[in-house]
């Protein structure tokens, strides 16, 4: 699994966010993000970028406290057995999210 945390990534992210906004102007206003992929389209090793958060306030706050933000890029590494939580590799940690927690993230697959 390539784990990248290169300097200058932020610039790339911002560019990519800008590009995404250009392609789909002010997505927030429309309520949905047409670039957003859903949980079903995740493949092992998929690298995703968080476009937005929506859902229960407490879960959103905790997701952010765990180090996620708009523009974060994380890698889907595996799902726990028995249809359990989804595991994501952040630059410096591993997070386990239940499906309903993952649904609070609007993301696109890079």
């Amino acid at each position, binding site marked *: *699994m390539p*784990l*990248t*945390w*290169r*300097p200058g990534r*932020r610039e790339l992210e911002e560019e990519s966010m800008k590009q995404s906004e250009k392609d789909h102007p002010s997505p927030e206003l429309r309520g949905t993000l047409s670039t957003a992929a859903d949980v079903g389209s995740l493949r092992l090793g998929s690298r995703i970028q968080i476009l937005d*958060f929506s859902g*229960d306030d*407490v*879960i*959103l*706050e*905790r*997701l*952010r*406290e*765990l*180090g*996620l*933000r*708009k*523009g*974060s890029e994380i890698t889907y*590494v*595996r799902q*726990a*057995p*028995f*249809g*359990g*939580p989804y*595991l994501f*590799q*952040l*630059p*410096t*940690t*591993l*997070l*386990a*999210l*239940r499906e309903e*927690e993952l649904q609070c993230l609007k993301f696109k697959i890079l």
Partner: protein
Amino acid sequence: MSEIQNPVKDGVQGSRKILPRENQSEEVARVPVVALVGAPNSGKTTLYNWLTGSQAKAVNYPGSTVDYMKGELAQHWKKSQAFVLDTPGTYSLQAKSEDEMVTQKIILRQNPDALPDHVVVVLDGTQLARHLVLAEQVRETGLSMVLAITMADLLRSQDISLNLEPLRQHFRCPVLLVDGRLGGGIQDLAGVFSQNKNEISTPEVKAWTGAEQDEKTRWAEDLARKVFQKSEVRIPEIWNRTMKWDRLFLHPVFGSLAFFVIMTALFTSIYSLAAPLMDQVEGLFTWLSEVVLVLNPESLVVDFLANGIIASFGAVLIFVPQIFILFLGMGFLESSGYLARAATLIDKPFSKIGLSGRSFVPFLSGYACAVPALMAARNISSSRERWIARFIIPLLSCSARLPVYGILLAFLFSKSAPWIPGLVLAAIYIGSMLVSALASGILNKILPQDKKSFFLLELPLYRKPLLKVMLNQAWMKTKSFIQRAGPVIFVLTVVLWVGTTFPHHQASDAEKIQTSYLGQLGQKIEPVFEPMGLDWRGGIGLLAAFAAREVFVSTLAVVYNVADADSEAGLLNAMSQAKLSDGTPVFTVASSVGLILFFMVALQCLSTVGMMIRESNSYQVALIQLVAFNLFAYVLAVAAVQSLKSFGL
């Protein structure tokens, strides 16, 4: 609370007077209080152990019941004096569970017993960007702070160098690098505390909006980049080994297998390692009470000492080996990083019955003893789930039931191959798991949904645990258990002694208990026990088991007048000869199975009830639990006994 004034039993304690808080305004030299705060797995507890040595103690937070740890700075750092508080791990000062609330209250100086002068924010050096956000939150409160960056050893192993200047510039506070393995940097950290600024502020925490949180996270990432000076690219290397291990431990087949093997190993070691120690404790107390009894067998005072006081201390301390090994085992699983994987693995199955992976630790502890299990339920974030977990914990087959199962299985299978009772014991354990899953499933159906439930677990690096820290932590928790459960068990054992001794304390043992208050009560309510196939003597055994379940066995020995109470053969013989008033045997297959089922479900442990009242803050819940479980146990036992009887067993 008195802990403030009486913190440790170290040599200098007597000569030092800690002044109560109200004297503070008089500007007397006061020992500063330092709170450690940090995310879970940030190395906070290791740091705490380095700072305090082994003299820490768990403190019960008044009003609620969550623990934080408090200890005095160890002797060898005594350039300065300070009390150190170890708070439960938290990701932010916006608490989302009971244990995070404890931390929040301490940092915001809302807990009058734990008012910190300094806050040490413990940051995992390999997680700097993420952990800096918490540091920023603490900075905004205006408290005097210190940043301690841990995992220096890991960073060094990857040749990652840190430039701490940008951090010092932003936070305007001491920033230190500490090594939890070798203790580097601890001396400097301990030195910082002597500069007691004593600025008493009333800190407030600002609630950040989502956008502000995003902004802070970006800022923290930028700052971390300045600190690492491009060497952070090597941090992911640290994770390579962990990723490999996770391929095994989170594999559907091998992961489940590993889970099963590790849990079996934990429980076999709890039982097998603890057994000889428990025998020693029991032997010691039996010897002690015999020694005392010899002094004057006729004297009531001597009898009280031997069978009341000494026996009750024995009843408390008999569980210490087991509890210690349980805590040690769990500490090992936790600090090695496996416990978070086990919780992840079990999350989906548990979610079907209203629990989550976060209930795994309390669930696991419940198989040793319900009291620490109820305590462990605090880190469940959802109050609904916490409620369900606490409700079903007493249904798990705790170790106190083992001696009861032991004697009944020995009676039932005295002539069978030894593996048969073993198999039946396994079936009992699985049965208790199914009953608790059923109870949990029912509660999950009837309780209103709670939106705030989340799992969201961080899986830490796999690391080799530090034995010293683990032993220390396990001992702290064991002490906390003795302090909590001890008095309850002690009082109940004394009450039981009174109940079985008076009013005819001079009579022979069998007569004494038959005519005692408890004996009279047993005979009065004999009709209740009849459907279970028992006479009043079995009934007394069941009543006595409310002090502690294993007391059932020793009470049987007394009421059936077994001369040598320690010999199992003597008791088995007496059991097989015991007759009901109509001449039929008391202990049959039917009544023994009934008893096993009764013990499996019944809530016969008043320590658990006491703990439940404290933890749930409600007499009502504890009472419902007490009545419901015992009623269900009774109905189950009666149904089993009557149907087995109809088959002639």
